[in-house]
């Protein structure tokens, strides 16, 4: 009956998971997840004909065409027959293609009031699987709502507010930290891009450079070598075209205000003529195209318009070029200069720019998705900074802002430190397991259990509910794809706890097998077994059972099937794989909360945890795809648990093995073992381990001393000392091998 009951529960869980997967299809249709946008969204001058601008700019009844660089549109309201500016709208991908967790940007429409406050935000499209199923999309909408009314020039970060540092904090979405960090970057960059163009934000004023003129006549190769002339090449495949050895475009550029560079490129007369045309605070750079057929001036350029293919960025300031900022460049004076088929000189007319500081030359392009034909905004940039020897006093000190992941590590330094210490402590304790198991006996396992239970509680409370650091199979799938296609450290560093946890998991799995993570540190596994132990302690032991070995040996393969199905599905659709990964109850338990999700998810967790009262770790043994993925490399762990030859006939350890990892021949399957160490306690327990108990009785009866138990699990043998040294027996160590 118990077996039938267990099977019935397991079947219910599987059916529930399938039902969850089935019921998500209609949900998908109503969300912005992989929503189909008109191709014109990325290119049409009349942006608001294709996206709901009025939803993000309340009161606006008409909109301008795209203008500026990066693009934005102006929104107007009719008032007494006249048009009144009521704000601006910007499409996030017109400003930045910052990828979120999925590797694709969250395409957001952002409305700003005329004085630079966020007026409305609408997600047009995202590819974040976690927002499809794990966390409701409304969570991202709620997150975005936090920006409403805030100024584009505010220092807004994810996390707590720090008034002393003038930082406004936003509440993150539990379990989607990477997504919201990327979203914050998008929001602030987009707001600032519009704010600077329309005068809401003041441009930064940078001290102008003083150049060192050595009077050298530089040739092309020297300038390239010293970095004062640089190359930016874009390959066809980078913009979604057929791969070719010929670049889509190859550009060379440099800063002409420096006398040595200017003279080398334009000749003495040409350079002096150029400089005489520049006002104070104006800067010139040259650009030539040496390969490729695409014009860097832009095929759609018309007089009075903007060059929409190139841009210069210094810090947060973007500099674009109009027709009046362009001069012809007919030839290059520098010896060794390459042949070119397009050229030009562009003038930056802003005191915000300084040749002393680093800047980026940006080529703006569109990437075409060959499968769908959809175009997405993409830019290619290259940093340029005059070498120290070209500047009076060398390069100024530039404090670059921390990368988003670095800010996370800094703001959560204490928790990260505690977590790292915890992981280290677990490894050290387990590394000394021999000392702990020797102090334990079958009847008193507290020397081991005190540590294990403590780590369980910490894992559940601090790691699971506190840090939300529950490793998941979705991370394995993401890593698998990243490893093969595009490894981005930033993506993984943004969640420091998961990052550290995985270092711990990988290292300990290779050294000891998956049991240390699964059995000691997995928050859900710990919760499951703790419930089982508590139930045992309060008198429910008589209802507790394990499946017969025959059934266990069949059902344990289910988790591998689940893992391989998820892996196979992820090849075709990561989104679908993430949906199916709901077979893991982790999101419901820790990341989102059992009472914040639809009832089927809560019921699923309740069934699994309820079953844990009666059976030890049912999810870990039979369903967990993460456990399966870790079990596979555990086959090749370096150090396993110890066995004696007598274990092949003795069943003492096997009977007590809650993981059912010891077979009828006494062999431990390290793929299934949770490292509870119960068998290791017995291994050196002279009252319980049959070979030891037998030897103890024999020696006691014969009046022989009980020598310490060696590494091989036997009493160190008593060897007679040579006659010359007396008749007393001495113990000598037995070979440890």
């Amino acid at each position, binding site marked *: 009956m118990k077996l039938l009951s267990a099977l019935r529960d397991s079947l219910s869980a599987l059916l529930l998971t399938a039902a969850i997967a089935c019921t998500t299809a209609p949900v998908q249709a109503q969300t912005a997840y992989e929503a189909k946008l008109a191709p014109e969204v990325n290119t049409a001058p009349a942006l608001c004909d294709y996206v709901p601008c009025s939803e993000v700019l309340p009161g606006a009844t008409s909109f301008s065409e795209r203008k500026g660089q990066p693009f934005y549109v102006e929104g107007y309201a009719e008032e007494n027959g006249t048009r009144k500016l009521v704000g601006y709208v910007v499409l996030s991908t017109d400003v930045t293609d910052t990828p979120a967790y999925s590797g694709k940007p969250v395409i957001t429409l952002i409305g700003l009031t005329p004085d630079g406050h966020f007026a409305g935000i609408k997600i047009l499209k995202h590819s974040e699987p976690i927002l499809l199923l794990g966390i409701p999309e409304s969570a991202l909408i709620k997150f975005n709502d936090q920006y409403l009314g805030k100024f584009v020039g505010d220092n807004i970060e994810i996390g707590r507010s720090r008034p002393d540092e003038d930082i406004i904090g936003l509440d993150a979405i539990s379990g989607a930290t990477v997504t919201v960090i990327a979203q914050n970057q998008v929001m602030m960059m987009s707001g600032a891009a519009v704010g600077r163009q329309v005068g809401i934000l003041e441009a930064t004023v940078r001290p102008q450079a003083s150049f060192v003129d050595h009077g050298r006549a530089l040739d092309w190769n020297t300038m390239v070598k010293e970095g004062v002339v640089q190359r930016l090449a874009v390959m066809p495949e980078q913009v979604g075209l057929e*791969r070719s050895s010929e670049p889509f475009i190859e550009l060379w550029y440099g800063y002409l205000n420096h006398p040595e560079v200017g003279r080398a490129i334009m000749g003495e007369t040409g350079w002096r003529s150029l400089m005489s045309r520049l006002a104070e605070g104006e800067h010139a750079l040259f650009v030539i195209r040496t390969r490729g057929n695409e014009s860097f001036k832009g095929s759609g350029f018309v007089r009075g318009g903007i060059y929409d293919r190139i841009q210069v960025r210094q810090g947060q300031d973007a500099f674009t070029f109009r027709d009046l900022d362009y001069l012809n460049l007919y030839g290059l004076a520098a010896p060794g200069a390459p042949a070119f088929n397009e050229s030009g000189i562009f003038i930056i007319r802003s005191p915000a720019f300084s040749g002393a500081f680093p800047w980026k030359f940006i080529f703006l392009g569109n990437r075409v998705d060959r499968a769908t034909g959809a175009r997405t905004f993409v830019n290619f940039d290259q940093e340029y900074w005059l070498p120290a020897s070209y500047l009076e006093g060398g390069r100024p000190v530039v404090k670059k802002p921390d990368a988003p992941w670095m800010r996370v590590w800094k703001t959560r330094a204490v928790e990260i430190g505690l977590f790292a210490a915890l992981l280290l402590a677990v490894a050290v304790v387990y590394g000394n397991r021999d000392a702990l198991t020797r102090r334990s006996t079958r009847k008193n396992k507290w020397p081991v259990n005190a540590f294990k239970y403590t780590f369980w509680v910490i894992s559940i409370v601090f790691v699971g509910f506190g840090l939300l650091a529950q490793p998941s199979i979705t991370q394995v799938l993401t890593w698998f794809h990243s490893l093969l*296609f595009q490894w981005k450290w930033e993506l993984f560093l943004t969640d420091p706890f998961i990052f550290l946890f995985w270092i711990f998991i990988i290292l300990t799995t290779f050294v000891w097998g998956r049991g240390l993570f699964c059995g000691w540190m997995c928050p859900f596994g710990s919760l499951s077994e703790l419930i089982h132990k508590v139930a045992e302690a309060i008198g429910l032991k008589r209802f507790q059972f394990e499946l017969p070995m025959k059934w266990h040996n069949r059902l344990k393969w289910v988790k*591998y099937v689940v893992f391989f199905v998820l892996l196979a599905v992820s090849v*075709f659709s990561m989104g679908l794989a993430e949906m199916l990964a709901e077979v893991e109850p982790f999101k419901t338990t820790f990341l989102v909360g059992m009472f914040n999700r639809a009832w089927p998810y809560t019921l699923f967790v309740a069934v699994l945890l309820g079953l844990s009262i009666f059976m030890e770790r049912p999810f870990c043994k039979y369903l967990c795809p993460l456990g399966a993925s870790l079990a596979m*490399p555990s*086959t090749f762990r370096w150090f396993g648990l110890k066995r004696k030859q007598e274990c092949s006939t003795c069943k003492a350890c096997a009977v007590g093995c809650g993981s059912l990892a010891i077979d009828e021949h006494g*062999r431990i399957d390290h793929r299934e073992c949770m490292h509870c160490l119960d068998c290791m306690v017995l291994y050196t327990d002279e009252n319980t381990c049959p070979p030891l108990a037998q030897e103890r009785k024999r020696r006691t009866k014969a009046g022989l001393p009980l020598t310490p138990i060696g590494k091989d699990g036997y009493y160190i043998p008593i060897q007679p000392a040579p006659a010359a040294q007396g008749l007393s027996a001495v113990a000598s160590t037995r070979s440890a091998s």
Partner: protein
Amino acid sequence: MIDPRSMTEPVEPPYPGGVLAHIGAEIWDHLWPWSRSGFQRQRTIQAASLAIAIAATLVWVLAALGNDLAPNTIIGWWFGWSVFEVVVRLGSKPYVKEGPWWSQRYRKASVMDMICYVGFKNLLIGATLFIALKSLGLLVL
């Protein structure tokens, strides 16, 4: 009598003596799933293997030459090859290492042992190959 210290019975692969020769033989084993004795026993499989090996090589050469290969296709090939390699190895080199990687203890491989070994090894080889090809600019995905 069954040795409970090993999940399956111990095996001694036909490796030569000497540390370097032994390491060389192990590396060869990792890269080359076939053996002479296995080849004799699995003639049908080997015939299929020849066809698959040619097709797989062609795909990899095409990839190296920069022709377009969708990520799914590549993972599909990787997966298909791994399944095939498991079958071949179970007939040709049916053993896996036991314990530390620097030790010289081997045991008979069960099907699951072989799946774990081939899957893990090919993931490492695949990742190394992709990283090398991409860093050399020969592969853009």
